[in-house]
Structures are given as C-alpha cells and as structure tokens.
C-alpha cells in the first residue's frame, strides 16, 4: 500500500498518467495511431521539443528562464543550411560541432548578461530573443535552404531507424540520459536545486552561484544548438522564421512535466514527458478527428492544470513539514 502511495505522490505521475491515458484513448478510437509509422512520427515530432525541454529544465531549476531558445534554434538551424551550401563536402560531424558550439556561444552571452548584470533572466533572454532573431532575419533575408541542398546522409538521420527508433531520437535519448544523470546525481547538478530553492542560502553554503548559473545557460545554448541541427535534418526548409515562438512551448512542456517555474523542483524526465505529451496531443487530436483548432486550447488547459496540481502538492508538503516539525519540538 505504501508503495502505491509513493508512486502516486511521484512528481511526474500526473503527466505520465495523462500521457498513457491519452495514448490508450486515442488507440481505442483509431488503432492506426499506434502503427509502426504512427509511433515513428510521434517520436520524431517529440525529439526537438524534448531536447529543448531538458535544457530548459536546467535553467528553470535555478529559478531562471531562457526565452531565447527559439531564436538560438533558428540561428543554428539556418547556419547548418549555410554550412552545407558553402562547403559542399563538409563532414556531417563537423556541422554538428560548429552548430552546437554556435549555440553554446549564444548561451554564454545570455549567461554572462544574467550573471554579471544580476537582472532577471526573463528580461535578458527576452532581449536576446529579439536580437538573435533579428540577426537571423538580417542574415537570411528571404532566403531559405531546403532539404535538397543538404547531403542525403544528413536527412537520413531522421528517416533511418534502429529497432524502430529514428536516429535523431536516439541522439536525443542519449543526451536526455546524460542531462538527467547530471542533474539528479552529480554534486554540481544538486547545486542547481540549492540555488533555485534559495540562492542566498546556497551562496552561504559555498555553492559558486554565479558560475553555476553561467554554465547552465551555456549548457542550454549547446542543447538548443543541437536541437537546431536536428531540426535542419528533420524539416525540409530552414530560414529566417525557423523556431519562432517555440520558447513558450518549451517552457510549457517543462511546466506540464512538473518543473516549477519558481525554481528548485523538477526533473529532466518529467520535462521530457511533458514535451512528449504536448506533441502527442497534436497527433492524437488528428487521429481522433477532433478539430485541429482545439489543440492549442488543450495545451493551455494542461499548463494551468499542471500549475494547480503543483500548488496543491506544495501546500500539502508544507503542512506535512509543519506537523513533523511541531512533533520534533
């Protein structure tokens, strides 16, 4: 009985439950939803959002936020298009490295501004959201690069599968595992929770707060860079508006997955489940022949429910702590 309760109290339980329920309902209405191609599409659609949500979790846990990820993804995806066009023979691995490093540099600019200026990340990354997008617009103009401009092997990354799992999804899973283990199991990963719970206390305790926050933004930039490369592999065209507006979806995915916007709580696995849930909703609404226009409203309801659930559970924890502290006295 106790074990059942502990699963129910598991922070990721609501999102996992919603995801399973959604898949079961959709499958019973339309069995074609879980055909091999359907499952593959589900994974492909979720891949990019899941990577971005994992990176955003690192930032959110420290009580910061990075709104510039959509613009970083746009810039890196477009740079992939440019690289293949300008250097036709360039090895794919080199493109990966250059684009990921570009993302890292953009993230480092965010990190520097946030940690030096001591201004909320919301403001700084709102500014860089504009600046990076503007640079992307100036660079690309009306130009777009299409899948035909890129080598076939690069596009194959999102076509070929191993054990039914697309290659780019495998890459995402590996990254996800690394970030999850880092955040849950390493000392500097645990520091991030300490910073998010109470940054002054963390500083007193000896956590290098400024350094950690800076590196979190760099890490998120690197991951957004990777997402940009995978985007260029998955989608036909990259141009000036690539990734526009995805930042709110990313934050939504993390929040739905139980990452608190007020910092200090949440896991990478939860955020990944949140991302998977958001993208699965789109597909299942189509599979159930529900008007596609309902999709965004459903996402809104999901975010609000996640926030309410979080509030209820934190109130309950506070009460439990108060009772146990009272007994200890």
């Amino acid at each position, binding site marked *: 009985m106790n074990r059942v309760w502990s699963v129910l109290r598991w922070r990721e339980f609501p999102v996992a439950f919603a995801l399973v329920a959604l898949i079961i309902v959709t499958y019973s209405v339309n069995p074609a939803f879980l055909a091999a191609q359907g499952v593959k599409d589900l994974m492909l659609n979720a891949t990019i959002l899941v990577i971005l949500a994992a990176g955003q979790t690192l930032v959110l846990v420290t009580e910061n936020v990075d709104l510039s990820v959509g613009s970083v993804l746009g810039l890196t995806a477009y740079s992939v298009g440019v690289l293949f066009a300008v250097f036709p023979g360039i090895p794919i691995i080199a493109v990966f490295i250059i684009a990921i490093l570009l993302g890292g540099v953009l993230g480092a600019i965010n990190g520097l501004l946030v940690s030096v200026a001591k201004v909320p990340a919301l403001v700084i990354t*709102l500014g860089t959201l504009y600046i990076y997008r503007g640079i992307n617009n100036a660079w690309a103009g009306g130009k777009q690069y299409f899948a035909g401009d890129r080598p076939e092997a690069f596009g194959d990354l999102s076509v070929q599968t191993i054990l039914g799992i697309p290659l780019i999804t495998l890459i995402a899973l590996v990254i996800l595992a690394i970030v999850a283990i880092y955040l849950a199991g390493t000392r500097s990963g645990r520091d991030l929770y300490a910073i998010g719970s109470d940054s002054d206390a963390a500083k007193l305790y000896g956590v290098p707060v400024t350094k950690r926050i800076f590196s979190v933004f760099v890490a998120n930039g690197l991951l957004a860079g990777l997402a940009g490369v995978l985007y260029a592999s998955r989608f036909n065209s990259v141009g000036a508006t690539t990734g526009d507006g995805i930042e709110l979806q990313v934050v939504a995915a993390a929040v739905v997955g139980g990452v608190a916007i*007020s910092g200090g709580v949440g896991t990478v696995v939860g955020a990944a489940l949140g991302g998977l849930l958001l993208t699965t909703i789109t597909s299942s609404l189509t599979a159930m022949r529900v008007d596609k226009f309902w999709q965004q409203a459903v996402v809104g309801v999901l*975010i609000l429910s996640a926030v309410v659930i979080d509030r209820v559970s934190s109130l309950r924890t506070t009460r439990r702590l108060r009772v146990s502290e009272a007994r200890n006295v």
Partner: protein
Amino acid sequence: MSEVLSQEVAAGRSGAARVMTSRGAIMWYLVLAVLVLLSLVVPGFASPRTAGFLLLDVIPILMIALPMTLVIITAEIDLSVASTAGLTSAVMGVLWAGGMNIYLVLLICLIVGLLAGAFNGIMITAVGLPSLAVTIGTLALFRGLALVVIGDNAVANFPRELTTWATSKIGATGIPVFMVIVLVLIAIFAVVLHLTPFGRGLFAMGFSKEAAEFVGIDVGRSKFYLFVATGLVSSMAGIFWTLRYSSARSDNASGLELAVIAAVLLGGVSIFGGRGSVPGAVAGVLMIGIINYALRLQRISDVVLIIVTGTLLIASVVGPSIFEWMRKVRHDRRVHRDLTNPAKSSTSPAS
C-alpha cells in the same frame, strides 16, 4: 533605494526637482532629443505623415503598456495580453459575420476581455499561483480559444464608417482620432497610480507583499482589479487592431506581449516591482516606436529592427546595474581610504 532617498533628502531636493531628474523624466528628454535629432538628420521625418503612421503603429502597444506598468510595479506579470486581444478579435469577427449589431458586438468583446482578465486574476490571487506560470497557460489557452472560435477564417467586411474612423486623423495634424481615447486611458492610469492611495499601495506591495498586507492593503483584491483592467484594455487593443487592419483573425496581435513588456521595462519600470511610472512607460513605448519608424524610413526591414528593441531592452536593465556597481566600487574605495587613514576622516563631518 533608501540610500538614494536619504541622499536626496540630504541634498534638499524639492518635489519638483525630484520629478525632473526621475528615470521617467530622463526617458522623456531622450525621446525629445531623438525626435529633434531625427527631424534634422532624416529627410521627410518631421511631417504629419510621420505622426500618423508612427502613432497608429504604437497605439496597441501603448494601450496595453498602461495596465502592464501597474501589474509589473506590483511584481507580477501578464503574458496573456496579446492572446486576449487575439481572442477579442476572433469573437468580434464571428459575431459580426453572424449578423449581430456592431455596437452589441463591441460590448461583448469588452466583456470577453473582462472575463479573460478576471480568470487570470482569480487564478493568481484566489488560488495563489505565480502570475508567470498562469499567464503562460492562458497565453496558450486564449489564443487556442481564438482558433476554436474563428479557425483559419478571416472576417474583413466591418462597417466602413468604423474602419475609416479607426485610421482617421485630427484635421491636418496627422494625429489619429483614436489617440484621444488613448490619452484618456493614459490620464486615468497615471492618476490612479501616482495620485491615489490605491496607486501608492501598488508600489508598497511591489516592494514587499508582507509589509503591504501588514499596513492594511488588500493585496489580493488590488491585484485582481489590475488583471481585470489588463484584460479589458487588451480587448480594446484587440478591437482597435481589428478595425485598423479591417481584418479579424485568430493570429491578430500575436507576439505583442513581448513588445509591450520590452517597452515598459525600457521606460524604467523595474521587473522586481516597486518602481516605475506611467509617463516613463509611455516614453519607453514612444522611444521604440520612433527609432523603429526612423530606421524603416532608411529601408531597414522590420524583421531586422527587432535587434534595436532587444538591445534597448538589455541596455536599459544592464546600464543601471553597471552604474550601481561603479558607485559601489567608488564607495568601497572611499571607505577603505578613510579606514586606513583615520586622522583624515575624523576631521570630515560624520555622514
């Protein structure tokens, strides 16, 4: 802050002098300087056409910036404003296409805005959720409802007299008639914030919610009213947007929330709450509008211009931090000197 205040008191600055050297006033000097500079440098800038186009472009941002200023001063935020405007636009289109009387349609649109704001307000004050999280949710929800209401249709055939009225100008000045409504709104919000006990309460709760509650301010109710006002003004902006472009679509005004917040912060409203002014926010909106308009005259495309908005936003928040840091360094150095050289400091008056 208290240090700054005590310095000002010590220097014997009167109320007028403090107003003239406030952040809001400085923003206005900058706006005027930029206007003068551009009139001299850019050919064709100083003309009624400029006033017309510039103001028509900034009106939606200017309107929403007013309640947003008050919301941010209480250390909250509302990201759902553009979605509320979009939802209003969609409702307006569908009801008008359904043959309803246009004035009844407008009334219902305003009620939609009120309800949207009240929903945010209840979630934030009664349920006690963080406004950032709630309004990210309603940003998606309201835009989603707009899609449910109107889908990917567009309604365009609004009454001619209303659409021409929305873009008409006052005589030969080039100033849009609609600016009269905006000016009334500016006056209302400025008076409420700066001249009423309610407004002073907003600053107080921005500094410290607990302290504000302690001195008897009903924090929950005040914030609820603010979010309702934000919803209402957002729906007015949605109506204006629809009439100006004579098109009701689900994606109207999308992304506007970020432009509004950028302008408000540029106008000196602190994201931490407790500091800011309505005139400052208005100057922030105008600053971004003017610079963008002038650069557009130079045939720099709109999409590249967002670099300017972003840079101004970052500069406006990083600038004061650097200034503060330099002052601290200077102060530390002086303290250090006084401590290592006590004979000298004992002759100087105690501070």
